[in-house]
């Protein structure tokens, strides 16, 4: 009995190991060949998989193994959704993984969120809020709660600032604070307010004697605002209403992250300082930090640790190369007309972007032949917002400017 089991082991074990590495016995050629496989997972799951014209026995998520190296036409179909097709190159011993394929419904289900017409959406990412603009006065701005699905005016009806003409609104990711710049030509004002509280408005005009090139604050410490003007960073302490001019000098750009201020110096080095402390600044060598310092529109994905940035016609993905001193940049889309916004979605597997007045979905695939699907038309010159928490795309419909939602990821 022992020897029988030993015999079984010496036969089964190597066979299983070879199988796991992709080796199979091809009865047609009567040779051992090394195969590859393709792995597919979709949202929603349970989609049919077609290899050429043949339907695979399992539905997604599934892996089709024992594929002789070559090119295969793979199609994924599910009732009510647009088919997804891709020409897959199979290599020996390798897996072509197509994870997180998003299937787009034939007829997207649009949810109306507000009956009023609006001009634009101002995203407040990471806060669960949206700003809606329906005019040029401060009273024309409202705050929409994504979870409660209700909106209310940004300022109270009795506020002395409600008639303020608004020139620009500045928000920061994950911060519920808003900075409003407005007023008349001879009387510009800066208001710093909390979008969650109607009457929490602080006039900070006197702290900004000159219009800065940039204004930023951190969600961890929203009583400290940093501005950049003519190469100098100034610090505003809202609590004590104090201005600390020339907090830092010789700066080209800066960002705030993780209770630190990262600055792009004149010699293009990047320094990191912990604000509030007088420690020596630390030189940052990771090239990846250059992106948000050199491109205003760089969007970070914490799952893949990649950035995406765009021009009017192209979208790029950038990540840390194996050599930390270098950046690995890849063009993922070309052919846009006026790319205005981009969002990472579904764990960094897709990019939702606005090109002119259309929202499109770019599915990133390992072989570089990315898929682009049109999603919806939106109001001309308006912005959209995608929330990872709710899974909705918030947009203004092209005809009435009403706030609508469209669920991108069907659960």
């Amino acid at each position, binding site marked *: 009995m022992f020897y029988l089991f030993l015999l079984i082991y010496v036969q089964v074990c190597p066979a299983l190991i070879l199988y796991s*590495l992709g080796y199979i016995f091809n009865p047609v050629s009567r040779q051992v060949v090394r195969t590859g496989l393709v792995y597919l997972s979709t949202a929603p799951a349970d989609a049919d998989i077609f290899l050429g014209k043949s339907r695979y026995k399992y539905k997604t998520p599934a892996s089709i193994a024992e594929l002789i190296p070559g090119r295969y036409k793979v199609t994924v179909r599910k009732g009510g959704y647009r088919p997804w097709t891709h020409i897959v190159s199979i290599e020996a011993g390798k897996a072509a993984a197509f994870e997180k394929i998003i299937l787009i419904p034939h007829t997207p289900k649009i949810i109306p969120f507000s009956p009023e017409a609006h001009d634009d959406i101002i995203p407040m990412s990471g806060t669960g809020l949206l700003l809606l603009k329906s005019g040029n006065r401060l009273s024309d701005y409202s705050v929409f709660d994504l979870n409660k699905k209700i909106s209310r005016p940004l300022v109270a009806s009795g506020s002395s600032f409600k008639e303020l003409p608004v020139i620009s609104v500045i928000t920061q990711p994950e911060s519920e604070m808003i900075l409003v710049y407005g007023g008349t030509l001879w009387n510009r004002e800066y208001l710093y307010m909390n979008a969650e509280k109607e009457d929490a408005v602080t006039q900070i005009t006197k702290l900004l004697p000159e219009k800065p090139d940039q204004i930023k604050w951190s969600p961890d410490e929203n009583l400290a605002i940093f501005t950049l003007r003519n190469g100098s960073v100034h610090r505003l302490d809202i609590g004590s209403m104090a201005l600390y001019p020339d907090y830092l000098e010789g700066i080209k750009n800066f960002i705030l992250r993780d209770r630190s201020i990262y600055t792009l110096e004149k010699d293009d080095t990047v320094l990191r300082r912990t604000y509030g402390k007088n420690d020596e600044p630390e030189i940052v060598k990771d090239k990846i930090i250059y992106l948000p310092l050199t491109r205003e529109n760089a969007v970070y994905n914490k799952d893949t640790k990649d950035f995406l940035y765009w021009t009017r016609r192209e979208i790029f993905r950038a990540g840390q190369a194996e050599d930390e001193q270098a950046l690995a940049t890849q063009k993922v889309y070309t052919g846009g007309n006026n790319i205005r916004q981009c969002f990472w979605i579904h764990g960094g597997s897709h990019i939702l972007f606005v090109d002119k007045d259309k929202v499109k979905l770019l599915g990133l695939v390992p072989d570089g032949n990315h898929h682009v699907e049109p999603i919806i038309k939106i109001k001309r010159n308006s912005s959209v917002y995608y929330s990872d928490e709710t899974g909705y795309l918030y947009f203004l419909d092209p005809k009435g400017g009403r706030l609508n939602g469209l669920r991108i990821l069907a659960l």
Partner: protein
Amino acid sequence: MDYEYSRFKIPDDEKALERFLEILPGALSWTIIIGMVVLSFVRPMSAAVVMIAFLVYWLLRLIYMNIFLVASYLKLAKEKDTDWMERIKSIDTSAVRSPKFDDIYHVVIVPVINENRRVVESGIKGLKTGDYPLKKALFMIALEEVAADGVKKDIEDLRNEYKDIFLDFIIAVHPAGLSGEMRTKSANTAFAAKQAAEYLKEKKIPYENVIVSDFDADAIPSRNYLSCLTYHFMTTPDRTRTGFQPIPLFHNNIWDVPPFARILDIGTSFFQLIEATNPEKLVTFSCYSMSFKALVDAGYWQVDMIPEDSGIFWKSFIRFDGEYRVVPIYTTVSMDIVTGPTLGKTLLNIYKQKRRWAWGVENFPVVIRAFLKADKIPLFKKISYGYKLLDSFISWATWSFLLTFVSWLPAVLASREFASSTAYYTIPRINGTIFSLASFGLVVCAVISLLLLPRRRKRAGIIKRAGHVLEWLFIPVTILSLSSLPALDAQTRLMFGKNLAYWAAEKFRK
């Protein structure tokens, strides 16, 4: 072979070898565990492939063991009702060159240190209700001098009550602090056995005709234990070079303990059932019997080492140049499952007991040193036994860790290269299939455990009985924390040259 079977009385020129052999089991176990973890980080693909090889080996071994478990259980069930006394009568003693039944005696040694009357008495009652004439049995309590006065009084009361049913009832009080001894059960039983030897000499009872049984204080032999033992003694050639191993069950308080304690000791019974099917490599465990002559010739139990059950096997095996074996006898001895007054104490006590069992690894260096000198033991036998001894301890300490932690580690730590290979996708499927097949083994264990379980004091409903089956789902966690971890603990102590203080398990019964 004349050999000083001891970890401490070592010739100077062997001390380095002894240390190396003490380090070897622990080093191998840790190397396997840490090595596989490191390999999972550094080369996840290679680690995944190694795990396949291990999992296939594990599955085949599981199937192999299950087959023998079922066969052994069926044999136990078949022989449960055998009338061994009748079979003894049918033996032609001249043909098998056996002493006559009337000339055969038993010495039953029960070591006691802190067990109360109820615990010890149940074993005596078990013998009393058996089918064997106890007037042929010398009953000895090996009592530690340091036992509490209450315990001493209990034992004295037992002697007064039961002395007339035995040939004699002797209380051998083992003095504390004898030179050259550790405070261990084996030192205690060795002292009692020496007194028994004197007694038998006085009574002119030849050692060749005596079978000694070494029972734990809580052991309750089955009704036919002595008769079954006697039958096998009479029919075994080379009986004076033989030990006899019953199937240990842990039924005395099985319904009063938490599920994890129950399935762990049922697993121990399974292990012995499986071992019984391979008598060529069977080693004595827990409660067992042996020829008294063999015990005397081997030099009694080792007084400076803890594992007295396996220790006496190895000592005898070496002493008799490999001409010593253990015969499985399909009768049972029931013991208590270690427990405690609280759940926490129960966990601790179980851990300590398993660690003490795993301390049998201290036999390894002593045995291997002996094997290196034992010219008369065939090489194949030495390699075979030595490998089995080492493999049993290493697999005891490492398998659970590999199965619980390392099997999924390569997929989690997959490098980009591994994640884009076919292996990344096929290996989890293969592993999943192996675990699914292994679960059949779990079903077999659950079924056999139900068949082995004694009747509850109160009849259990179907839900409670289903619960007993579902207890087996906790096996992975239980084995890891209360079997593998104590084994690794014991090997690590030996590796660092530490000793394990003897710890007598507390016995609680409701």
